[in-house]
């Protein structure tokens, strides 16, 4: 589904990603872990098309298409979804109006009829249950005055509405209490299928108790320095990142 080859990216001339290689197949869950500043969120942002990142080398093929050639909105329409680490508050834009606009533009791109108000509301009600989100929240402006947990839940709700093929969760767990974490993870798990894939970017292993990964990759200094199964995450939880840093730093020193 997704094939990242030798991806290099920088911000204002400073290289952040220095050669990422990653293959993700349908039905898989990949966790990207790593210490702060290793480039985890940059990877998520580059895949979603954030403009301040400059790709200097490499390619990303998503379902046979050059992802990096596409505008952010086209990536979303093709089925890439980024759950933001910091969802933006947009006063004056109603959550419902926003979602309907987004969903209908995505549907139009996919050659589907736009949803009328009634069908849209029915769909919304159905998906709201999935993340236990309150109707009251959605009658407000987009994310305005939402708590941290409510914002993250709203991200997963939007994901449920847009039905992406590839979901990238950027530190969706950060700042969540146990209950919110459980709700968000349940939502993600219910949306998984053998046709979709999930990339979970996280600093902590905790989330992976709920969203169980097939593969765990450790990012350090802009490269994937170690890959393994979910046991690798447990090892990281126990031992921290220092041993990996040492391994990598001594290897490069030699």
């Amino acid at each position, binding site marked *: 589904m997704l094939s990242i080859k030798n991806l290099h990216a920088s911000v204002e001339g400073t290289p952040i990603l220095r050669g990422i290689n990653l293959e993700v197949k349908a039905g898989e869950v990949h966790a990207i872990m790593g210490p702060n500043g290793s480039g985890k969120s940059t990877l998520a942002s580059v895949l979603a098309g954030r403009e301040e990142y400059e790709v200097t080398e490499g390619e990303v093929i998503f379902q046979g298409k050059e992802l990096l050639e596409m505008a952010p*909105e086209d990536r979303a329409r093709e089925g890439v979804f980024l759950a933001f680490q910091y969802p933006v508050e947009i006063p*004056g834009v109603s959550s419902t109006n926003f979602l309907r606009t987004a969903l209908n533009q995505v549907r139009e*791109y996919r050659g589907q009829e736009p949803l009328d108000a009634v069908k849209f509301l029915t769909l919304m009600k159905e998906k709201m249950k999935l993340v236990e989100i309150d109707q009251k929240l959605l009658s407000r402006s987009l994310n305005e005055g939402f708590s941290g947990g409510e914002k993250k839940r709203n991200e997963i709700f939007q994901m449920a509405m*847009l039905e992406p093929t590839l979901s990238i969760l950027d530190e969706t767990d950060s700042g969540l209490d146990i209950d919110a974490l459980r709700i968000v993870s349940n939502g993600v798990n219910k949306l998984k299928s053998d046709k979709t894939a999930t990339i979970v970017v996280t600093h902590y292993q905790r989330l992976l108790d709920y969203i169980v990964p097939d593969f765990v990759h450790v990012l350090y200094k802009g490269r994937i320095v170690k890959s393994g199964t979910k046991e690798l995450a447990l090892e990281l939880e126990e031992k921290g990142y220092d041993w990996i840093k040492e391994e990598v730093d001594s290897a490069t020193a030699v």
Partner: protein
Amino acid sequence: MSTLTKQDTFQSLLDSASSSFASIRTQAKETYLTQGLPALKEEEYKFTSIAKKLESKIQGFKYALPFAVSKEDIQSALFEGFNGDVLVFTNGKYLPELSTSPEGITISSLSEVRNTPLGSIAKPEKDPFSALNLASFSDGIFVSVPKKQKIEKPILLLSFNQANSGQVIQPRVWIEVGDFSEVTFIDHSISTSEDSYFVNKVVEIKGGLNSHVNYYRLQNESKNAIEVSNIHTDIFQDSRFTSVNLSLSGDMVRNNLTLNLLGSNSEGNMYGVYLLNGKTHVDNHTNVDHTIPHAESNELYKGILADQSRGVFNGKIFVRQDAQKTNAFQQNNNILLSEDAIVNTKPQLEIWADDVKCSHGCTVGQLDEEALFYLKARGIDKNTATGLLLYAFAGEVLEKIEEESFRSYAISLIQERLGSKF
């Protein structure tokens, strides 16, 4: 090069002024001749050199005469769902035969109500254009709402302007609203020509005890129209006045909006949106005078500027020594969509009382890139996303319009502009 700051520029207008209100006109003429048009560096008109603009666009000033409009013209100018009375004007002249008569309200030409104290609210010495209008307006309209009347239907002041370059239209409106009465006005002008005519408008409004007056205004005239307006309001105890001013087009537009809070527990609201493109220049000068204790004023103006447009906001709040317990809030926010667009914004607070709550703020910025990316990342194209954000920005002001058909019309007009232009 000659300059328009000379008093004789409008001599032909002054000479041919009507004979009604003779003594008021004579005084106003003297006031005007003493002041002259604002000079280039004059503080009040620093950013809006209207005299220079008039000089460059207009040669020889003459009255624009009233002209005929058909019932169909009027019908097609009404907002969808509008259910109210319509007062029709062409080039500033009230045409009763084409207008409806709102129930319970006295309406006539100003020349028929000769004891109207014109200039007592929009004082000619406050602004030379106001003085010029008072000295030389041709005729205007007198509207009087008696006491204890709730006028359910909105009253649309529908002006058709069709003048040749150099012609001057000087509308004059006097509105008095009796104690405990409520009424909503919608002031809408339509250009039927693209020439550089000059509109110099004065509206005086008096809101009695416990009255509620809404005055909504839509400026969407020709790209070449030059306009100065003076809308001055006096309100008394327990009354409320709300102005919503939407400026969407014109060459150079200057709005002087003055609100005198003359009774305690009165409330004045001044809201505005200016959505400008091309080379349109819009200047909103607002002035709130808190003369008594326990009154409140709220002010919110929002600007969206594209291309080489220019916006000016000057918000003066004057709190007199006696006006303790005043609440006065002012906010002006601007979004610039182009590097060539300019905004000059200036809060001007003069506070002489010591127990008041006053706040003001102004911002000038670009569209929030982070918000834009968020919308795009959900599949929304750039134009739609930009439109959504800009509309959200302006929407806060549009929500203040209580009259539904006008609000919907204004919203669709602005959405259309945001969708097509930006």
